[in-house]
């Protein structure tokens, strides 16, 4: 109990510093001529879309039947053709027996739709997920080649790793999009995902190599003396242990990947960053949108690190 009491002043100090920083920012923005319009932001996440339902021919409203929230409108054309439409009850614009001309609105249906920020978030999410899966596969294969006895496999993997780690991701994305995209005729989305996956693969390979080499040599020898060949020993003994040890650095790598995926916006993939930029052009709420975009990235990454922390706890049973 005493220990907690002793730390309380420090927690207050932390809160005070954070509060001062926020206050300072607020004062600074007050000094420039900027109007905060947070109210404009939510509609870019999700909005209530009104779809008006027109009558496709000249005709008469035969009947209205109220089904609670929705109303069914039966219309009959001059030629005797019957059609039924469903609209929201509070947006019915016609009454029974009314004559209508083609194109007149019977009513409207309201629907919630995802705005550009939510769509961008989804694109970022699935691009990162696909790139992570391929990055993991590439990294695992390269990592195994890196510790193989065959000199060719070793040299090839080292070349790949050095090449990727030695050049900026942005440049790699450009090369994938402009050069490989043109030569191999691949779409921007494939180019973007491959660039991310191959970039992550090089780092994952080094993590896997370190993980494998951190397992004592005796483990491999014990497995071999018990009737396993080298690949079997790798799969049943070395990799499960290496995976557990490399989970924290792998988590860091995949969190990086989510953040790095913002760079694919440069080749016109409408991810979260690109969506943010688009929303800014129509709202001029520059500050708000960038804060929101940052917050959304933070959400993704913290959810991922929570998931990995949970997996780590599950695996630590055998520690």
């Amino acid at each position: 109990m005493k220990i907690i009491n002793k730390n309380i002043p420090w927690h207050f100090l932390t809160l005070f510093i954070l509060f001062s920083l926020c206050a300072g920012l607020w004062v600074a923005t007050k000094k420039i001529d900027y109007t905060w319009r947070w109210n404009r932001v939510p509609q870019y996440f999700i909005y209530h879309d009104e779809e008006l339902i027109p009558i496709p021919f000249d005709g008469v409203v035969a009947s209205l039947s109220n089904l609670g929230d929705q109303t069914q409108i039966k219309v009959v054309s001059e030629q005797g053709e019957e059609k039924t439409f469903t609209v929201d009850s509070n947006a019915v614009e016609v009454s029974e027996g009314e004559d209508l001309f083609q194109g007149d609105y019977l009513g409207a249906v309201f629907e919630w739709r995802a705005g550009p920020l939510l769509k961008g978030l989804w694109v970022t999410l699935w691009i990162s997920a696909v790139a992570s899966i391929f990055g993991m596969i590439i990294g695992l294969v390269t990592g195994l080649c890196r510790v193989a006895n065959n000199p060719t496999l070793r040299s090839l993997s080292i070349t790949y790793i050095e090449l990727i780690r030695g050049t900026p991701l942005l440049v790699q994305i450009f090369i994938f999009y402009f050069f490989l995209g043109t030569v191999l005729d691949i779409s921007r989305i494939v180019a973007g995902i491959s660039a991310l996956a191959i970039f992550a693969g090089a780092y994952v390979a080094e993590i896997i190599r370190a993980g494998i080499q951190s397992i004592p040599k005796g483990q491999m020898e014990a497995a071999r003396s018990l009737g396993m060949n080298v690949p079997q020993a790798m799969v049943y003994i070395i990799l499960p242990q290496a995976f557990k040890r490399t989970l924290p650095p792998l988590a860091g790598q995949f969190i990086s990947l989510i953040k790095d995926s913002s760079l694919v916006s440069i080749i016109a993939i409408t991810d979260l960053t690109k969506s943010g930029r688009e929303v800014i052009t129509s709202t001029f709420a520059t500050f708000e949108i960038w804060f929101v975009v940052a917050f959304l990235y933070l959400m993704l990454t913290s959810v991922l690190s929570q998931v990995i922390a949970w997996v780590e706890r599950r695996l630590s049973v055998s520690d």
Partner: protein
Amino acid sequence: MSNNIILELKQITQAYDQQLVVKDLSLTLQNGEIGCLLGASGCGKTTVLRTIAGFEQLLEGEIFLNGKCVSRSGYLLPPAKRKIGMVFQDYALFPHLTIFDNVAFGLKGMEKALLIRRVNEALELVGLHSEHAKYPHEISGGQQQRVALARALAPKPHLLLMDEPFSNLDVTLRERLSMEVRDILKEYGTTALFVTHNQNEAFAVADRIGVMYNGEILQWDSAHNLYHRPVSPRIAEFVGEGSLIKGVVNDNNQVETGLGLLDGVMTATTPTETVVQLLIRPEDIIHDDNSPVKAEVIRRSFRGANILYTLLLGSGDKVQALVPSHCDHQPGEKIGIHPDVRHLVIFPVGVQRRK
């Protein structure tokens, strides 16, 4: 009898970089025998073991397991196909598997009912059946050792190899376990070869012991013979306690030494007048205050029941004596001793004319 030979090493030679670590080493192990390679660290004993297991290439020579050549220069049967079991110095248990799965690991592909029976049998043999659901880090070092043994024995290997199996245990546990391991191996009828630097372990467990020095086996023999009939002064000094003193063989097949004239069965026949080195074990020297032979205590080492004294003889030779610990003497004191040497272990040095 030749089909009873499980392991045969024929003049194997082994090198790391440019240094020979094993030289022309040969040995054979009969079915059910427990062999031991005893030597100081760096003498190449672990290399021999790893070569038998198939982890190291052979430079020269051949290794036969159960009558089949498994290693020769340029050929290596993979360890997985040798039907050997191995217990490692650090046990190398698989930390991510339970005790049961560790022991079952070498039985992959076996029918499930048989596998469960075999694992339980192995765990009961080492007395750890109740711990089968635990992970290796949840049991003690001695238990880990026994799990490692059960894991190696479960597939019923032709040959069990153990690399310094007891060196990670504390002294009391080490003594108890080494005897237990011998009983388990004998019960299982397993042929085994282990390496150690600890003589007590070698004596307690092995039927045959090879003393290794500098990549060679100096003597491959039973514990009794190593102690009582060493073939060279180096083994005499390495195995057990004791010292070599100078002596001269006289006409009556007696040896004249600083302890007086010694009579007994000699291990080697030598012409008279030969200068020899004579092995004196601590138990050969009896403390006797009435004896005319006196020696000066130069070092004492208290061992509980006994005290091991290092004594300086009038001739300048040093001998050791094991004396019950109630006879307490300090360095510098002269005490009476008389030799009780039943058989004379002598190593001829050269012939010397008497003055």
